[in-house]
């Protein structure tokens, strides 16, 4: 009796181990969770468009033809960290999701970052801005693809200070993202001899900015820095025009501005704004070709924003890593390590690399919003002003506080 049960136990264990071994080498199933703001103020810059971008990344990877089975689920975090983490946990525990993509809203992004690390998944963030994701709160499971607050501060911020804008007043969204952007921009301003003369923190999703704009006007600062995003930025810019801020000699710095924001403001009001992005649909033949395919499938025929482009490019690189491994090991840290070991190259962001802290490095572009007379089509909005190489735009590793670098 005893020997028989021992024998069957050993046999069972051996079979299980063998099965597991085969599974890790040949398992070609992947489940992607596109977690975004599907209905709130960031839904147009990420949202359903990010899910479409993920879908296109799966199709363009050609993995289905090689026997891979890849599914996508999408979720709405409603800009609330508790809802975001609840969805992430459910995805990992019940739905067996391997990789979470997008996640705009820095507050939600940082919360989800912890869950992904705990569950050993893969996290390719495109939508969130906070540089903490690859700095103080970096994780072996996280790749931060598209942009971050350090980059925004060191491109737009620096360019404006150097152009003579040495006194600043901040309108800051009162959560993780706004705080990070204001902090990073302030350090650039002071490092370049400028001064921050004041600022005001406004609640997320504020319809009326007139009180704040009056304070900015009274401060006599040369530059009014908008450390906010989406609907908050469009409302501030629109109302700043109404209060004659730019005509009065002050300049607006939209530290973070997306294609969909410019559309919402209208060129009449937005013209002349300077800002930075890492992707624009009209950069070259490859970006135009992708954007055309993307827009055809979008409800309002909108080309991709840089966030949506980042979801696509990040996933393409993830698939390359999985192919190189030869199967899905369902081990997030291992896949991310592989992603970091391969140089990145794709049609949308060009050549780049993922640094050991998880930060993806690629070119950043300074743009100016066109005048209505210069625009030739419904989405022809940007003029290229300058290109900043990736190694100058993003946090140098020597300045990074990421714990992964200390090994």
């Amino acid at each position, binding site marked *: 009796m005893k020997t028989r049960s021992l024998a069957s136990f050993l046999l069972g264990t051996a079979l299980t181990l063998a099965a597991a071994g085969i599974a890790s080498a040949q398992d070609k199933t992947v489940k992607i969770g596109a977690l975004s703001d599907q209905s709130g103020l960031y839904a147009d810059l990420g949202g359903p468009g990010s899910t479409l971008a993920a879908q296109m990344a799966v199709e363009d990877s050609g993995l289905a033809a090689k026997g891979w089975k890849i599914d996508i689920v999408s979720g709405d975090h409603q800009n609330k960290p508790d809802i975001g983490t609840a969805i992430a946990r459910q995805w990992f525990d019940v739905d067996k999701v391997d990789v979470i993509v997008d996640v705009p809203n820095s507050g939600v992004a940082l919360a989800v970052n912890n869950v992904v690390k705990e569950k050993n998944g893969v996290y390719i963030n495109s939508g969130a801005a906070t540089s903490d994701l690859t700095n103080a709160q970096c994780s072996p499971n996280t790749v931060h693809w598209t942009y971050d607050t350090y980059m925004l501060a060191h491109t737009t911020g620096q360019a404006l200070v150097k152009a003579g804008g040495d006194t600043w007043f901040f309108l800051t969204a009162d959560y993780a993202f706004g705080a990070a952007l204001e902090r990073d921009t302030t350090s650039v301003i002071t490092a370049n001899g400028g001064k921050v003369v004041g600022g005001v923190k406004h609640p997320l999703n504020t319809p009326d900015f007139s009180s704040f704009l009056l304070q900015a006007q009274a401060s006599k600062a040369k530059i009014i820095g908008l450390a906010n995003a989406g609907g908050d930025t469009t409302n501030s810019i629109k109302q700043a025009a109404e209060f004659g801020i730019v005509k009065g000699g002050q300049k607006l710095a939209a530290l973070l501005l997306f294609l969909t924001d410019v559309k919402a403001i209208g060129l009449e009001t937005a013209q002349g704004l300077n800002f930075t992005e890492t992707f624009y649909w009209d950069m070259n033949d490859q970006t135009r070709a992708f954007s055309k395919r993307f827009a055809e499938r979008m409800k309002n025929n*909108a080309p991709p924003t840089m966030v949506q482009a980042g979801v696509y490019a990040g996933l393409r690189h993830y698939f390359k890593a999985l192919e190189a491994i030869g199967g899905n090991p369902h081990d997030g840290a291992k896949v991310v390590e592989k992603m970091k070991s391969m140089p990145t190259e794709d049609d949308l962001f060009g050549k780049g690399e993922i640094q050991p802290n998880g930060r993806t490095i690629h070119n950043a572009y300074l743009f100016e919003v066109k005048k209505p007379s210069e625009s030739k089509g419904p989405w022809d909005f940007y003029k290229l002003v300058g290109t900043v190489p990736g190694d100058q735009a993003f946090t140098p590793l020597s300045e990074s506080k990421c714990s992964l670098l200390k090994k």
Partner: protein
Amino acid sequence: MQALYAQLLVGLINGSFYALLSLGLAVIFGMLNIINFAHGALYMMGAFVAYFLLDLGGINYWWALLIAPIIVGIFGMILERTMLQWLTGLDHLYGLLLTFGIALIVQGVFQNYFGSSGLPYAIPDQLKGGMNLGFMFLPVYRGWVVIFSLVVCLATWFLIEKTRLGAYLRAATENPTLVRAFGINVPRMITLTYGLGVGLAALAGVLSAPINQVRPLMGADLIIVVFAVVVIGGMGSIMGSIITGFALGVIEGLTKYFYPEASNTVVFVLMVLVLLVKPTGLTGRAA
């Protein structure tokens, strides 16, 4: 000190939106006993109709001020005829749930078609620019909003409290059977009243289109504050909601100046304080 004056004025401007919206709510609650949660969605529809009139029909802002409330008002009357009228005599909760559901559907449909980031609507040429008041730069359009809302609020108050039509209306809500015995078509009057309340919401929407983005959720973001205004003012009290609307706008403006982080919550703190002291609201009568 100058900055303080400026904040007072800005508060008054926001207050005029609160007043217009809460006025419509108060009319509907006072006359129909319906807690109209669809009010924000109808406000948003007013802004969207103004946008479509301009974008598709080339019809300018001034006509939109007239046409949009009529179109949305008719939509409201259809809602009343087909759905809300069946709730007469039932608990308030049913009306609240039904109108909340309507609001979600309307917002969802708009969001599905127009996204969340909004559409631009320019300030009409006649109201562009601004003037320097010494203590602040006042955009002409904002000044116009305050004056226009004040006129509309007072006209509505006059219509309901001082005219014969208003007297019929108030009598009809007290005792519909008796009023009907005098040969007055009470259901039609109620439908028209709902239409009027909805039209006021749409009018506020048109007024707000050039200042804020025309967005599907613009009403959802505002409606909770407006409900707080109505509750503080006293449910159903016309004058109460007008005065509270303007007053809360000013208090909110001052909060934005002294402690901006609390500007989204100050209204609710006030609501709690008022309800603790006077559960019927400032000017409300006991039910």
